């Protein structure tokens, strides 16, 4: 097994842990953190293919990851602000209870 296979398997594991957390947990903060883990797994793939890819001269993989980290940071900020707004309405951050648009 080559190192590229190992990198891809590790990122698959991280993606699946994030997917399980996003689907299985009831706490909204943990659901958001599961989505962040999935984004990190995608970034691992970018770096792995950049490191072991056929064209090592370009820095495209790193550029992709820098932009992806910036967008993920914006997503985390907006998500946590939404969680705080929901908590202010119903004193609760369980995902099943947030089923009304106007609380």
């Amino acid at each position, binding site marked *: 097994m*080559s*190192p*590229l*296979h*190992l*990198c891809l*398997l*590790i990122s*698959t*594991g*991280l*993606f*699946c*842990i994030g*997917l*399980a*957390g996003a*689907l*299985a947990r*009831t*706490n909204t*903060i*943990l659901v958001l*953190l*599961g989505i*962040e*883990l999935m984004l*990190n797994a995608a*970034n*691992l793939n970018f*770096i792995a293919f*950049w490191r*072991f*890819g056929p064209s*090592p001269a*370009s*820095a495209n993989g*790193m*550029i992709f*990851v*820098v*932009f992806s*980290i*910036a*967008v*993920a940071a*914006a*997503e*985390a*900020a*907006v998500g*946590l*602000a*939404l*969680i*705080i707004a929901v*908590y*202010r309405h119903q*004193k609760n*951050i369980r995902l099943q209870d947030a089923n009304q648009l106007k609380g």
Partner: protein
Amino acid sequence: MTFALLLIGLMMLGSAAWAMLGRNLIHSALLLIASWAGVAGFYLWAGAEFVAFAQVLVYVGAVSMVVLFAVLLTRQNQISATLIEPASRARAATGILTAACVGAIFGAAILSTGFHGAASAGPVSSVKRIGLELMHRNGAALLIVGVILTVALLGATVLAASDSKNSPEDLP
């Protein structure tokens, strides 16, 4: 070299799995910081130092603080947090089963693919080169990301801001 990769992967996956399975929210947030630090270690291992330090700054430094603030601002009593009803248990089992199926499909696809053309030495990256690429070829994308960050953070402030009419500090 492969041993270091295995060690980094074990730290990353172990702390992430523990964080997602754990009951205590603060422990989960702290373990996820360890997982993000493991991702930064992977970037260092692969030779992408700039991205590794960006990961440390953004995730280990900033996002973790935002997460901890959100955890502390939305604290609730422990009894309702530890109560598990049967519907939630079935949902958790379905979620973990779905993730395991996705992982099995991805793993089989990766293991059955033969990658070729792998460079053994690895690419050489310098911060100067990344800066030139960012400002020259990807200048428009950099500007758009800046606008996205500004709009998202302004929107987050508006969403999380409390009603100023009810705040006692604003009363004359």
